């Protein structure tokens, strides 16, 4: 009964010096959810840009058949008219405008250039209902969480009579429960007949919603499989082109004495008066140990780490931090670094790197005194340092003079790591160290982490991906609503137990609120 909605045949696309796509084939049936997998740089996004008209007809090779006709898009507008709508990884919402204004941006409910607000609001409410939101249409988009913003994006697509919805890594920035909501919505849209293409790194999500999967590697189609053929191992094998028997490198854990001990840590929100973000938190890290912090987004993991690292977040911070049993001064970033702490941010592009500067300058940024004499830089030493880390971490680049903006996500992450390793920290806090990087690079980051632990450093790993925590950590702390709920050893820990702790905590909180009311 199925009918082919889209067929892309022999698509090729060449950028100066790079063959990004080479004879890619993709067939999407009407009403299915089709997943596209591939490592970073495999060509997924390029393919979708060809489809959505970002690269106009004539700038690529091959043919596209859509809805029984040949598709020759000259612009994004062209493809949108035909019902092909793409939601990019970076959300395209205007934070200062309202939901209603955003939904109809470029597609205003207007006559003769005058907007009919009552009608727009009414339609907004209907669209919001469709995506399961109950926000007031005049709400500023910037005040919504990322999860809700993602839903607004989908509502925006629905406002344009979407037939083929393309979602480029829609859950990359989302928390577990928001992701689930989004996936549910995808299934619901499918029931309403919207064909969807999802690009994702998260294999468990794909196996949940996708009817078929196409794997792309190095710009070519490797395989397309039906739902019943899908296994994670097979996807990974096709993606990386080799067997990944172990997704996490082996490691002999041998924790020593306590390095860092944080107790009674309280942090208040920097702007909202009276809102406590971290409540009486405490944790310890031993030499050679990898300790995980699990929790949903907004649970305070990043806030805990950043408030500890030179009070980079929050105000009225109280609590004690002991390094090797002695009180440590972490009241500024410089002092925290001197005390032996390092914090590798979750947002490497915004908080970690100076994108327009070369690798070498980024590597030494946090420890310039280490490559200078009396305030004068020794550029020879600086280059040696950068070269050393390039080799040690296998940063793939023709030269350390390369600007970091030109590196892939995985290599950028290695540069941020190199920057902090050069400060010779005893304890490294890694916040989402593998976010947005491909499977192969993840393995390399894990290996580096294990090496660091083996050198006797203590590592705190904050991650939203529970399998990663379970695979890497000796112990896992579970955080929720700014508190540390408990601690699970490697043997005790499982995805279910972590979630159970969080859900039980949320339940108790509701009960308490109920009693108070």
């Amino acid at each position: 009964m199925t009918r082919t909605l889209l067929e892309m045949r022999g698509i090729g696309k060449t950028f100066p010096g790079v063959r990004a796509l080479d004879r890619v084939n993709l067939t999407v049936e009407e009403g299915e959810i089709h997943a596209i997998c591939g490592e970073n740089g495999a060509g997924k996004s390029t393919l979708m840009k060809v489809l959505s008209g970002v690269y106009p007809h004539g700038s690529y090779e091959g043919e596209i058949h859509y809805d029984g006709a040949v598709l020759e898009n000259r612009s994004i507008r062209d493809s949108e008219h035909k019902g092909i709508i793409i939601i990019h990884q970076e959300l395209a919402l205007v934070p200062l405008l309202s939901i209603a204004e955003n939904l109809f941006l470029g597609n205003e409910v207007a006559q003769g250039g005058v907007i009919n607000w009552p009608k727009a609001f009414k339609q907004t409410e209907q669209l919001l209902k469709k995506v399961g939101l109950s926000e007031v249409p005049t709400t500023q988009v910037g005040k919504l969480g990322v999860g809700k913003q993602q839903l607004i994006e989908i509502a925006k697509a629905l406002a344009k009579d979407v037939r083929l919805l393309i979602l480029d890594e829609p859950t990359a920035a989302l928390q577990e429960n928001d992701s689930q909501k989004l996936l549910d919505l995808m299934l619901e849209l499918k029931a309403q007949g919207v064909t969807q293409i999802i690009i994702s790194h998260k294999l468990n999500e794909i196996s949940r919603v996708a009817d078929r999967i196409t794997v792309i590697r190095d710009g070519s189609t490797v395989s397309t499989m039906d739902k019943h053929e899908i296994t994670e191992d097979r996807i990974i094998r096709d993606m990386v082109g080799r067997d990944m028997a172990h997704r996490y490198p082996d490691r002999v854990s041998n924790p020593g004495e306590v390095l860092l001990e944080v107790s009674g840590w309280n942090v208040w929100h920097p702007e909202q008066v009276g809102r406590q973000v971290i409540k009486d938190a405490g944790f310890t890290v031993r030499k050679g140990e990898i300790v995980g912090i699990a929790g949903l987004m907004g649970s305070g993991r990043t806030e805990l780490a950043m408030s500890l690292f030179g009070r980079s977040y929050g105000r009225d911070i109280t609590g004690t931090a002991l390094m090797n049993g002695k009180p440590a001064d972490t009241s500024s970033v410089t002092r925290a670094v001197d005390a032996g702490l390092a914090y590798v941010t979750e947002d490497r592009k915004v908080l970690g790197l100076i994108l327009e500067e070369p690798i070498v300058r980024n590597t030494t940024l946090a420890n310039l005194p280490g490559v200078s004499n009396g305030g004068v830089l020794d550029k020879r030493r600086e280059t040696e340092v950068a070269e050393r880390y390039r080799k040690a971490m296998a940063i793939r680049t023709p030269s350390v003079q390369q600007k970091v903006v030109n590196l892939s996500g995985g290599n950028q992450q290695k540069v941020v790591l190199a920057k902090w390793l050069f400060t010779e920290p005893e304890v490294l806090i890694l916040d989402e160290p593998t976010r947005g990087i491909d499977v192969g690079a993840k393995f390399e980051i894990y290996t580096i982490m294990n090496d660091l632990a083996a050198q006797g450093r203590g590592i705190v790993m904050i991650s939203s991906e529970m399998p990663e925590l379970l695979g890497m950590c000796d112990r896992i702390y579970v955080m929720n609503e700014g508190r540390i709920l408990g601690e699970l050893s490697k043997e005790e820990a499982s995805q279910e137990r972590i979630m159970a702790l969080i859900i039980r905590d949320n339940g108790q909180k509701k009960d308490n609120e109920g009693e108070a009311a």
Partner: protein
Amino acid sequence: MAEQKGLGAHLGSHLRENGMLVALVAIVALFSILLQVQPQPVNFLQPQNITNIFLQNGHVIILALGMLLVIVAGHIDLSVGSVAAFTGAVAAWLTVKVGLPFYIVIPLTLVVGGIIGAVQGYWVAFWRIPSFIVTLAGMMVFRGATMWLLGGQNIGPFPKGFQALSNGFIPDLTGIGRPHGLTLIVIAIAIGLQFWLGFRARARDAEFGIEPEPTGLFWGRNLIIAGATAFVGWQLAQFRGLPNVMVVLAVLTAIYAFFTENTVTGRRIYALGGNEKAAKLSGIRTDRLVFLCFVNMGVLAALAGMIVTARLNSATPKAGVGFELDAIASVFIGGASMTGGSGKIVGVVIGALIMGVMNMGMSILGIGIDYQQVIKGLVLLVAVIFDVYNKNK
């Protein structure tokens, strides 16, 4: 070791730096020709003109040095023209009304400039008031303060010592007279230094695996610069020797070039402009650096103010109008990024010289001030369009 790419590829990636130099040479050549072919031919590159280019534009270069740091840090300073006028007035008042000698007036005025920069920098750095606003206010405040201090009148003339700051020339210690011996010696040393630094940088590039400049280009560029330096030096020696202002400029340029490229603090300013949040999380005290950039700007504005006052031999309420725009234009013509984080001292100096040469050339040609403004504006626009186009390519 990086492989050697072709000349074309290298020029492409270093278009900006070499392009600036080529543009300067081309503009000088253009004016030389235009002035030769007119009914009454004028030698554009006569000693007096060369001396005047530096005397008349010294303040712009000095202001642009400080402005580069401010712009690299991601800010702007609109007040420098007014601050230069005010500090010039302060210097004049101290010299003429109070009667202090120049060796006390000069440091004292520099301190005043530093304090003004500190006050403005305080609001920008620690209170996070946009620098555009703070310095726009400063522009008005110090213009008013200048008028108040001068009581609406000019103060002058000055004793010789103070005037020497801008009108003086280095003494000829060799006693040759004409050509000016010491000038020739200094120029010779400068050329030697240029080649020594060039070869050292080249050796270092090779060692660091930075793609080396094609040999032909290296020699071509250095010979052009050396030739130009020798020519300028010889011409100056025929006239009255090196002006004091030029010595000040050369020393300041060298200091700031070294500071921006080879010191920890300089590097941190670029990091701050490139990504303030990342710099902060790397333990860099970004607010203090912004503050220091403004203090530095204030001191340089005071120096520029004194040089201008000394040149005019009087402090006037209208001095320094539009200086800030000349300085900012020089920085952007010199290739700095509007969003901060990049820009080179050498580029800025060439940028200021391009403006200066154009000012003088057009004036000698008798082009009206109206057309001059239009042409200067278009040059700025073209330079920046060129930059943006190159970046997007």
